[in-house]
């Protein structure tokens, strides 16, 4: 039997159910379909036959795909999650995010992100919240649960209480740029991410100082330190977060909105918008425009649905 043509009506409902991509669900469109299709079970039957990802033929009826139900759970929850996170104290948000990735098999870039893009006082706040919530210190749990070679780097990043003034020592910035170059270009016994000098410089120096160091690095060696770090992902992310959070966050957002992004990558959109709305949203939009030639609000509008979309735009808007 030939597949039925998907009517425009059906397509609209499928889209509202996040069946054609996009984050979140279009609650208004779904409710409107309830009204429009009252006493018309044949319309719902048509939907079930057209909505290939969600329903599958099983003998005499179409049943729901379990995977899709799970997927829908996440998509419906995007609005709930963003609202709850928005209401939460920033310190608690950060503490919970770190705890979450330490206790589930999830990538640890959130830890680098939080340790490097928050101010010194905000990072201290997250550590205080972590005590209160989890009865351990943040660094204790990172040290215990992270067993890869970048464990030491992460522990030092989350323990930092960087000086935040503008006083910089130019000679030191120069010599540390040279030390970083030398560490990168000289293969040692240990991996670069375990190199004591690299860790010392990246985890203790103030951010203004590091930005001058990175600038000097590029001037002296022709390429940015990021480029020279190649596939040292953890170190690259550290440098990006320390050097320019807006550029880093605009990349994260871009990845979240790409086709085929996994759940974790998509969840980052909520995380970035909620945590940066009051911090550097303007700079993130500028960076996004520079890197991808599009307005962030337009891209969000096109790729998200419903109340979730409205919430994002409220936070990211003027």
């Amino acid at each position: 039997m030939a597949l039925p043509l998907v009517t425009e009506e059906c397509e609209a409902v499928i889209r509202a159910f996040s069946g054609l991509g996009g984050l979140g669900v279009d609650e208004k469109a779904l409710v409107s379909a309830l009204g429009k299709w009252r006493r018309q079970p044949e319309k719902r039957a048509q939907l079930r036959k057209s909505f290939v990802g969600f329903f599958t033929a099983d003998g005499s009826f179409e049943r729901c795909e379990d995977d899709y139900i799970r997927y829908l759970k996440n998509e419906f929850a995007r609005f709930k999650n963003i609202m709850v996170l928005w209401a939460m104290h920033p310190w608690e948000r950060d503490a919970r995010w770190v705890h979450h990735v330490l206790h589930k098999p999830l990538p640890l870039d959130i830890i680098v992100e939080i340790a490097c893009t928050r101010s010194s006082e905000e990072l201290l706040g997250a550590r205080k919240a972590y005590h209160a919530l989890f009865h351990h210190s943040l660094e204790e749990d990172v040290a215990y649960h992270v067993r890869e070679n970048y464990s030491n780097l992460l522990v030092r990043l989350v323990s930092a209480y960087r000086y935040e003034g503008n006083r910089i020592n130019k000679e030191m910035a120069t010599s540390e740029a040279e030390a970083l170059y030398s560490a990168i270009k000289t293969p040692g016994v240990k991996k670069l991410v375990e190199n004591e000098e690299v860790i010392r410089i990246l985890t203790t120096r103030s951010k203004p100082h590091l930005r001058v160091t990175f600038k000097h690095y590029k001037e002296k060696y022709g390429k940015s330190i990021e480029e020279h770090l190649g596939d040292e992902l953890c170190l690259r992310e550290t440098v990006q977060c320390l050097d320019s959070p807006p550029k880093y966050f605009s990349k994260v957002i871009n990845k979240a909105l790409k086709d085929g992004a996994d759940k974790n990558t998509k969840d980052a959109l909520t995380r970035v918008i909620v945590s940066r709305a009051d911090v550097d949203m303007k700079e993130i939009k500028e960076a996004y425009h520079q890197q991808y030639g599009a307005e962030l609000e337009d891209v969000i509008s096109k790729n998200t649905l419903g109340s979730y979309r409205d919430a994002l735009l409220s936070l990211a808007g003027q």
Partner: protein
Amino acid sequence: MASLKVPATVPSPSEDAEQLRKAFEGWGTNEGLIISILGHRSAAQRRAIRQAYRQSYNEELLKALDGEISGDFERAVLLWTLDPAERDAWLANEAVRKWRPENRVLIEIACARSSGELFAVRQAYHARFKRSLEEDVAAHTTGDFRKLLVPLVSAYRYEGEEINLTLAKSEARMLHEKISDKAYNHEELIRILTTRSKAQLIKTFNHYNDEFGKPVNKDLKSDPKDDFLAALRATIRCICCPERYFEKVIRLAINGLGTDENALTRVITIRAEVDLKVIAEVYQKRNSMPLERAIKGDTSGDYEAMLLALLGQEA
């Protein structure tokens, strides 16, 4: 228990500031007056006096003192007058600049303080030196000492009493394994010592003793000349029993020929508002002599008078 004695009624900060100003006036200095005021005021009171002095005379009290008094007496008064966090930051900076492997100051500051107090030191360090404490410690130390000291001064240990027995057992075994292998700088050993809460560590050390028959510090004595082992032992003692640790520092400073005034001044000024009374009791028990008598025997003049004031001798 603190040893500091503050009178029941205290003059206002501006009255105290005025008296101190009088102590400086003219030729010579009235050291006794300085001791009788500053040596009997709490940190909050001293801070108020400094502010009142600044407002009345447009000059920093500490700078004025610097011009009037000198030597060990000056160091004691200067260190004492500072806020506890400022004092620790000042001592930490001195320790970093003159870093030597036998230096224990950083370990004391990191381990014989509460987490909140250690963080206050880090804040005071930013304000005074325009760099972070961990940045300076990292830049001025190397090798195993850096591996131990940077995490120690960066720690923000959980302060609750909850302990995980299973973890205490497994980490005691881990410590024993690394110590037996003489892998004293091993990441796991450092991780345990520098991140676990004090309650958890004390339980771990108790279990170590129970299971292996020896206190962990005894097993860390294999080479008496090894400075790193000494640093590890000091870390453990500051965490577990600071009063006994500081009694030993005082004892070594006083006993024998000569006196280590810097060490003596350091312990007395940093503990007078914390537990110097207890330390003095430990001293008396251990040495069958009151601490005051030992100090009288080993120091003199205004320096002696200042130390005794902080030990609680009435003005």
